[in-house]
């Protein structure tokens, strides 16, 4: 079955102390893409670039900022195909954000009707 691994992290916490370390972390994110379970995913630009759209009085309201004003923000996701939640959790545990205090939310993906 498919799982989305949603990455939440505090963007003010650097992922690595030196530039070299940070470059390595970036490589680790990319390396995950070659896990056998991987289907896809995306890393997102910082939350200060977020824009929110909602409907108000029948009008589309566009505002600056994220949906929720929290310390940990949604920073990206991977989409994987795994046998069960234990395997999904194993892949989630390899996401570099976890090493820097981030949290991964695992969500099963609704199957597309065949």
């Amino acid at each position: 079955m498919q799982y989305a691994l949603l990455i939440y992290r505090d963007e003010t916490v650097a992922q690595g102390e030196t530039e070299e370390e940070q470059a390595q972390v970036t490589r680790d994110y990319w390396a995950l893409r070659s896990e056998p379970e991987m289907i896809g995913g995306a890393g997102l630009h910082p939350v200060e670039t977020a824009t929110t759209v909602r409907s108000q009085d029948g009008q589309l309201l566009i505002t600056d900022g994220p949906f929720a004003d929290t310390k940990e923000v949604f920073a990206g996701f991977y989409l994987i195909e795994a046998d069960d939640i234990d395997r999904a959790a194993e892949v989630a545990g390899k996401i570099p954000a976890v090493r820097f205090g981030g949290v991964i939310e695992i969500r099963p993906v609704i199957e597309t009707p065949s």
Partner: protein
Amino acid sequence: MIEQVFRDQWGRVLASLIGYFGDFDLAEEAAAEAFAVAARRWPSDGMPDNPAGWLVTTARNRAIDRLRRDRVLAAKLHLLAVSESDDTMRETSGIPDERLELIFTCCHPALAIEAQVALTLRGVAGLTTEEIARAFLVSGETMKRRLTRAKTKIKTAGIPFKVPPANLLGERLNAVLAVIYLIFNEGYSRETGLAAEAIGLDRVLVTLLPGEPEPQGLLALMLLHDARRNARFDDEDLVLLKDQDRSRWDWEQIAEATTILDRAISRARRPYTLQAAIAALYTEDPPDWLQIAALYTELADLTGSPVMNLNRAVAVAEADGPAVALALVDTLDLGDYQYWHSTRAELLRRLGRDTEAAAAYREALARARTVPERRFLEKQIATLSPS
């Protein structure tokens, strides 16, 4: 008689059906139907030689018939097509015991702890939803919702029906033991019958995981506590261990526990096993307080739990006197813990510091959860001389 067989076989039958259908709800419905058929037939036809096999076969056949009729569920038939050729499965043939898989599914950490407890009692121990609701003082509706939500999550989130691989087994087994001990303690503080259920669940684990010593340690621990159940209350009043009528202890059960404990502790000194060793020492008269204190030190190191240090202080009080023990207790950061206050109170009382003792008892009283505990604490306060 049939009821007892039902209770004994429910976990095995359900586990086998979940393994077969890969669906908790479908398996539960099928099992319930087979048990209903048995309740009608067995009293007149007699019980089959292999009740579990009979129940599983009947449940499978009924469920397959129903699935065939039900076009909405036709999608599930491709799964059945594979296993259906397995026609050799007859009433007397053995069915694999898949209760272990079921236990690990029910106690999966992706489920909330209340859900783990409820699912284990429903799925493995075979309690009804109503019985579980009564034991945990919630309405039947609430418990039904809790179970339904948990079963939905198992299915949707892909919680596996399998024994965890070696790299996860230790940690997952600890989670299972924690659920069982929680069930036991729920039964221990109030008379709910849950203590016996917990012991029964752990016996299943001990049988199915003979290579693991810690389930045996927990079994010994629960048997030792449970052996004192008839002496723990005088009417409604709590009786302290040292004041209990030892002739009312179940010595046969204590002997069984000690045998199990000896086997377990020779293989690994893990937390439940060490607690069982302490509980066994407590059954001696007088207990070896120095050895008990040493075991609590070992436990505190192993678990990092300050509660173990509190227990150690209780043993130290017997070995070295209340002043040494009080000094130990006061180093512990357990101000939210009822037994930290009651332990301090008891030590202060023994030191003749009645006013402080009364204040500490009142702190404990404010945190006490059960009526017998509250009554016990009130009695202690009443015996202190006001300053």
